[in-house]
Structure formats: C-alpha cells, structure tokens
C-alpha cells in the first residue's frame, strides 16, 4: 500500500466504519467496541502516516488526485503538508478519546451515536487534507451534519435552541464561502488549491474569512459558542472546541492567507484587532463565568484569538507558534471538557456555586485537573507556553502592542484558570459534591491520560511541531510561496 | 384564405377568453366556474387553430386536440369533486369552502 493511498484511507476508513456500525444490529457494548476499534485503527494509520512523512521534502506529500468534474477543474485532490499531519493527528487522537468517552458513558441509541462520531472523524480529517476547494467545502459542510444531530439528540436540556443557533451561524458563514469558492474557481478556471493562482480580490477574501471567523470563533462572531458548548454532550463539546474550531483556523492558514496575499496584508490590522479583542474578551468573560464549561468555552475563544493573532502576524515565529498552539490547545481543551464531563457525571452540574472541595479523597481527579489546568494557563515549560511564546514573539515583530495585549492575557489566563481549579477542587465541599462520589475511574483515566501524556510529551519537546510544520527555515516564505 | 384573416379570429378568441375569465372570477357556483373554464380553453383552442391555419403547420391542430383531451380530463376530475362535495352535503359555494387556508 503505497503512501499516497494513506490519506484517502484516513478519510474513508471512519466513514466506512460509520456505515458498518450504523447497520450492524449489535449490542450496545459491541457497537461501542467496534467504534473504538475503528478509532484506534485510525490513530494507528495516522502514526504510520506521520512516520512515512518526510519532513525534509517540500511540497505536498502522500498526494492523490482523481478527476471529478473535468471541465470545471474540480478534482478529488487530497494530500498532506507538515502542519496538516499534526492537525490530522490531533483530530484522530481527540476523536478516539471522545468516542471512548461516549463508549464509557454508554450513550443511548449507540449505533446512531457511534456512526455519527466516526462520520465526524472522517469529515474532519477530510477538511485537513483536502487540496481542492470543492472537496474542502464538501468536508467542511459534512462536519456540520453529524454535529447537528449529536448535539440535537444527545445534548442537554436546551439543546434544540443551541443546535439551531449553531447551525444558523455556521451555515451563514459557509454559504458565503461557497459563493467565494465558486467565484474564485470560475475566475481561476480551477478549484485546485495547490496550483490555483493567488488572487487579489478583497471580496473573495472576506467571503472566506467570514466562514473561518465564525467556525473558529473570533470576537463578534462567537454567538453560538456558549450555548452550544454548554448544551452539547461533554465529549462532543471537547471535539467541537478542540478540533472542529481548528478547521476554521486551518482554513485561514491554508486558503485565506496564501491565496489572497494582498487582501490579507490589507486587512491585517483589522484581523489582528479582532483576534486581540477575542483574546481579551474571552479571557475577561472566562474570568467571570459561573460554570465549568463556561470558563473553558470562553478560554477556547481566547485561544482562538491568540492563534489567529499568530497566523496574521505573518512572521516565521507566528506561523510555527500558531500551528503548535493549535495542537496544544486542541489537546488541552479536549481533556478539559472531558474532565468537565467527569465532574458533571458525579455532581450533575457544572455550576461553581454547587461545586467545591472535590479534591479531598479524589487525588486522581485533583492531579488531572491541576495538571491540565496549569498547562492550559500556559505555565512556562508547558506546550501552551511554547506556543504562546512563539506567537507573541512573532506578533511582537509586527507591532509591540499586540504582544503587550497577549502578555496581559497570560495574566488573565492565570486568574480564570486558577479560579476554575479552586472553585471545583478546593474550598468548602459543594452541596452537590457527595462524599461517596468516586474518584476518576480507570476507564475515564484511560481516556484522558493519553491526551495529558501527549501534552507532556509536547511540553518536553515542542520543537517536534514548531520545527516540523513548514519546510525549510522560513514558514512565512513557504506560506507566501503557497507551500511549493 | 377567404373571409376574415387570422387577426379577427384572434380577437374573437381573446374575447372568448376574457368572458371565460370573468365567469371564473365572478361566479360562486363551482359548476359555472368549470363551464367558464371550458370557455377559456376554447378561446385558447380557437387561437391555436387560427395560427395553425395561418402558418399552415399541423402542430397547432395537434395541440388543439390535446387541449381538448386535457379539458375533458379536467372536467372529469372537476365534476368528480363537485359530486364528492355534494355528497358531503357541503354548500356548493366556492366562497364558503374556505377551510384550507394559512
């Protein structure tokens, strides 16, 4: 099996798995096990892909191209760059953990649930490896369907409003993107991303950017974030904030900036201002949220702002830092939301008023939450710190005040994350915290521990991503040269 | 072509069509509405035949015949409806049959 088929297998294996899991009338346990099998197979395949990927060679690797609409110049064109290897890795690992959590929690209607999760995996991987605008759009939309059903059916009390708002926001953005894609494709006579020419049209750039800015929420467009993150089941929120949000940021990196260099530089200050606003606004609101998921939701809004800051800084450090931060934050917010799920399973609520004092008698939960919480607030030495440091150093070269705002946000991050840790673990025992509530079970630990292990490994060696995302010594030049 | 040329036939057809439309618009008895509908169809038919004669192309007449077939089927269904309404003892008045509304 030559490497070039690997990318397509990575996309279509989970989709096939989804169909299989959906159709086979198996028991709850067997369906879950089968789904887990597919997810872990997916992780294994990714490791194979990462191993085969030759970081010293420029350009697209493991590429596969098949005619789709010949005359329009649309082709099923998939391939992987350095940074997409890492994002695919993040996707498969996070999805495996989320599927495992769903399996552990024992969701009802398991066949539908696991089929949708696997479908979501396939679609997300598809987004990160699509090298053709139409294929990219197809997968970008395909992500939405399973999410809609997952939140709508298995969500919390007010799930329907949240789902509708989520879909409305995302559809609004992606329809505009579709228009931009069509316009771009016809104008350039090809929809291909690799050999498509750069265009100077500001409207197309704004069309793309709107979809990406809604998907990875930046400041004014995050209306859907709080409700969706609160109402979705914890593992879906974990995937939503950890992985799906990265699709928007990946879109900026892969499409918006290289394909529209002049508009990107024209709107640079505007987007940087937007990103900085998201960073500060998210941190402030996280500081004053009243429940577990609220804090983490707004902190992921802040982190998206930070990553966007890195991307639009346009400097070498900025790009590398953004990719590293995408992966690091993906792992962090996935584990944080899973821990939120663990807490909610024991106390049926995430409200801080009712929580507190969970650390006594539950050392595993305390260590886990403190470890992940501390990494997420970017304590120097953690992967998040490496990412933030690179981003802010990169954006500093652009203009010193962005870095100053970023540094301020680091202090805010410390404030809200410590508030979260002590509200859940320390102080007097909350009313809903029963004494006999168990510590983190081995099953749950087996899900969250790999993510934390990944984070620790990334903290020990952040250069694994920051130095192996873009070919050569200058990411900015690679992006300007459209990844040739 | 003896006698009046095609334009006149068209004028008659137009008038016939207008009268049919008026009938449909004003009358409340569904039967009369169906009849005036027939009038409109005939108006149309006349125009078709006139053009067929004018461009001496058979399609017009074929079309005319088809229109006749369609008219026949339409009447069949229309009358079926009227019979059904009648059996249900509903008032045979178009304005009073207005449950189906937004």
């Amino acid at each position: 099996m030559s490497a070039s088929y690997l990318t397509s297998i990575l996309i279509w294996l989970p989709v096939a798995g989804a169909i299989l899991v959906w159709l086979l009338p198996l028991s709850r346990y067997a369906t879950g096990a089968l789904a887990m099998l597919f997810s872990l197979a997916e992780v294994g395949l990714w490791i194979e892909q990462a191993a085969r990927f030759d970081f010293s060679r420029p350009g697209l690797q493991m590429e596969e191209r098949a005619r789709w609409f010949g005359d329009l110049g649309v082709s099923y064109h998939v391939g992987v760059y350095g940074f997409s290897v890492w994002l695919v890795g993040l996707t498969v690992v996070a999805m495996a953990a989320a599927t495992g959590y769903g399996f552990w929690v024992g969701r009802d209607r398991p066949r539908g649930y696991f089929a949708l999760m696997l479908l979501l995996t396939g679609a997300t991987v598809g987004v990160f490896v699509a090298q053709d605008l139409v294929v990219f759009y197809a997968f970008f939309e395909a992500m939405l369907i399973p999410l809609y059903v997952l939140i709508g059916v298995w969500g919390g009390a007010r799930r329907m409003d949240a789902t509708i708002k989520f879909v409305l926001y995302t559809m609004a953005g992606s329809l505009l993107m579709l228009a931009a894609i069509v316009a771009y494709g016809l104008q350039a006579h090809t929809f291909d991303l690799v050999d498509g020419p750069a265009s100077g049209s500001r409207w197309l750039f704004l069309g793309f950017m709107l979809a990406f800015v809604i998907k990875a929420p930046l400041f004014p467009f995050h209306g859907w974030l709080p409700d969706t993150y609160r109402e979705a089941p914890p593992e879906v929120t974990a995937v939503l904030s950890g992985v799906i949000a990265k699709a928007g940021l990946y879109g900026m990196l892969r499409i918006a900036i290289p394909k529209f260099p002049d508009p990107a530089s024209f709107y640079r200050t505007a987007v940087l201002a937007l990103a900085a606003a998201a960073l500060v606004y998210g941190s402030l609101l996280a500081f004053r949220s009243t429940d577990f998921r609220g804090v983490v939701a707004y902190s992921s809004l802040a982190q998206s702002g930070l990553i966007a800051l890195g991307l639009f800084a346009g400097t070498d450090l900025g790009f590398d830092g953004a990719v590293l931060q995408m992966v690091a934050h993906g792992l962090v917010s996935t584990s944080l939301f899973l821990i939120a799920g663990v807490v909610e399973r024991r106390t049926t609520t995430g409200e801080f008023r009712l929580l507190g004092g969970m650390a006594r008698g539950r050392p595993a939960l305390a260590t886990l939450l403190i470890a992940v919480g501390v990494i997420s607030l970017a304590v120097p030495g953690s992967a998040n710190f490496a990412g933030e440091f690179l981003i802010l150093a990169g954006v500093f070269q652009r203009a010193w005040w962005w870095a100053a705002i970023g540094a301020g946000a680091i202090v805010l991050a410390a404030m809200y994350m410590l508030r979260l840790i002590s509200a859940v673990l320390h102080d007097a025992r909350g009313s809903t915290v029963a004494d006999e509530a168990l510590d983190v079970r081995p099953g749950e630990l087996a899900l969250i521990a790999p993510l934390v292990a990944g984070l620790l490994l990334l903290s020990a060696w952040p250069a694994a991503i920051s130095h192996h995302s873009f070919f050569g010594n200058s990411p900015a030049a690679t992006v300007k040269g459209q990844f040739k | 072509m003896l006698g009046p040329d095609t334009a006149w036939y068209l004028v008659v057809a137009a008038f016939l069509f207008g009268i049919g439309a008026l009938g449909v618009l004003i009358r409340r008895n569904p039967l009369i509405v169906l009849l005036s509908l027939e009038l409109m169809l005939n108006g149309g038919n006349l125009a078709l035949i006139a053009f067929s004669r004018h461009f001496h192309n058979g399609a017009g007449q074929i079309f005319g015949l088809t229109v006749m077939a369609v008219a026949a089927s339409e009447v069949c269904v229309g009358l079926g409806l009227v019979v059904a309404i009648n059996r249900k003892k509903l008032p045979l008045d178009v304005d009073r049959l207005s449950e189906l509304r937004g």
Partner: protein
Amino acid sequence: MIVASAGNVVVWMVWLVAGFSCLASGVAVISFRNPFFSALALIGNLASLAVMYLLLNAEFVAAAQVLVYAGAVVVMFLFVIAYVGPRREEPWTGGPSWQTLGAVLAAGALLVEIVVAISLDAGHSLGHDGKVGPTFGSPAWIGRLFLVDHLLAFEITSVVLLIAAVGGVILGSHVRRVEPLTSEVAD
C-alpha cells in the same frame, strides 16, 4: 375579383354569424343563474366554434369538437348538474364587492392587452397568406402527424386521460366505511 370577393363575402357572413353566436353564448354561459341553461349555452358556443374551425380548414378538429367536446363533456356536465340538482343562486348578489370589481378589472386588462398585442402585430407578421393544400386538416393528415411528429404528446395525453379517469372514479365512488378489523387479528 368579384367572384372571389363574392365567396369572400359569404365567408365573412358565416364568420360574423358564428363569431357573434360564439360570444353571445359565452356571455350566456356565465350569466345564467341556472347551471342547466349555462351548459346548454356552452353547447351553442361549441357549435359556433366548430363552424369557425371549418372556416379555418380544420375539419377533423371541428368534428372532434362537436363529437367529443359537445357530445361527451357537456353531456357529462348535464348529467352531473341533473344529479346535483339545479340549485339556483343569485349570481350578482351582494353588489360588486372588491372581488368582483377586481375581477372585472383583471379580465378587462387581460382583454385589452391581448387586443393591443394583436393590433400591434397586425402590421407585419400576421400578413395574409396563400392557399392551403386540400389535405390540410383532414383526419389522415392529422393521424400521420400524431403518430409521426407528435407521438410523445399523443402518448402523454393518453396517460393524462387515464389518470383523470381513475381520479374521477375515486372521487365519484361512494366509499363504504371499512368494517373494523375483528379483535383476534393482532394489529
């Protein structure tokens, strides 16, 4: 050219009679209170139309018109009217509500536009043209046309008729209430 004009005058005379009777019966159709008389007026209208078709060398269509249309359709009408019973209702009751006023306005506007369209076109495209071959309008000619050029239209019309027939049967038939299934048959 007198002889020609004489034939012409006869045709004009026939046309005038047919036209007048056609419009008069049209007005009659929509104005009679009793639907029975309206149906009869429709027959008159159809007959005058058949004459007009003859003037336009459309013999088969005229024949079909009289036989099919007047013969079958209107008879069915009369049958239904008889079945339903000639309930009389005041056609013009309640004065010209905004409905009727609107209707008159609409029909009038439509009429005027068509006439204008015809007059506008009279100038160039509707010019007078020459003789037409003897077979024009004959049943054989129509038959060949149907089975050669417009076979598809022919087939589709048959399907439409079939559907209408089925529709009519269902609507018309008196649906007996189906007895409830006996209890022992598991639902």
